[in-house]
């Protein structure tokens, strides 16, 4: 995700196009207010898609280990 426009977050000022570094939760808060936009990062799907209700390290659809 990257900033879609100039934005002040806390005491830090970001310029349009600056990459967002942070958690999915905060990114979703910012995205749904038009502050962030996708930039091709793998994080984008988690931010723009349905709400994630389980730990991201659950590996989602990763194949089970073969014995």
């Amino acid at each position, binding site marked *: 995700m990257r900033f879609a*426009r*100039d*934005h*002040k*977050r*806390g*005491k*830090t000022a970001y310029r349009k196009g600056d990459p967002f*570094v*942070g*958690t999915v*939760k*905060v990114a979703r*808060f*910012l*995205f*749904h*207010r*038009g*502050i962030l936009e996708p930039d091709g990062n793998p994080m984008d799907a988690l931010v723009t898609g349905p709400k994630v*209700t*389980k*730990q*991201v390290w659950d590996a989602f659809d990763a194949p089970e280990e073969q014995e």
Partner: protein
Amino acid sequence: MATRADLTFAREGDVVLSFATGTPGNIPTIWQALGCPKGTWTLGSSTASVDDGLDNWCTAVEASIEGASPGAKTITLSGSMELILSDDAYIDMDLAELANTYSFFQIDMADSAGTSTKTIVVGGYFTQFDHNFNGTGPSDVTVTFRASERFTDPS
């Protein structure tokens, strides 16, 4: 799908509360949506209205948590606030209060123009969690939270 940025809100500020249990010093990754406060939110000795805007909210939150003296501070989310509790969040908070489980609140704040945002996470223990079942609705929730740590703008 329209996003919040496509919509127009009459409210000046925008605040979202979340709740999670955890361990001191570690910000949780999974949160329960607690609701969006409206009207007046009493934070310790500080009172602010959403209509006052983001700056006053931040000032009130920080003043309540930090205060004039060091050490833990009590945050009171009083019944004057329309706290929209989700069922899951209510159950989690009820259990945390009963078992004295270390808990966190995350407060995401944005101004109406979306030019400024702020996130505050506070951790601590419940000292009170009451729900008045007198038929006046979910706004009659009283939470007193003894905050012992604070994170401003956690990534």
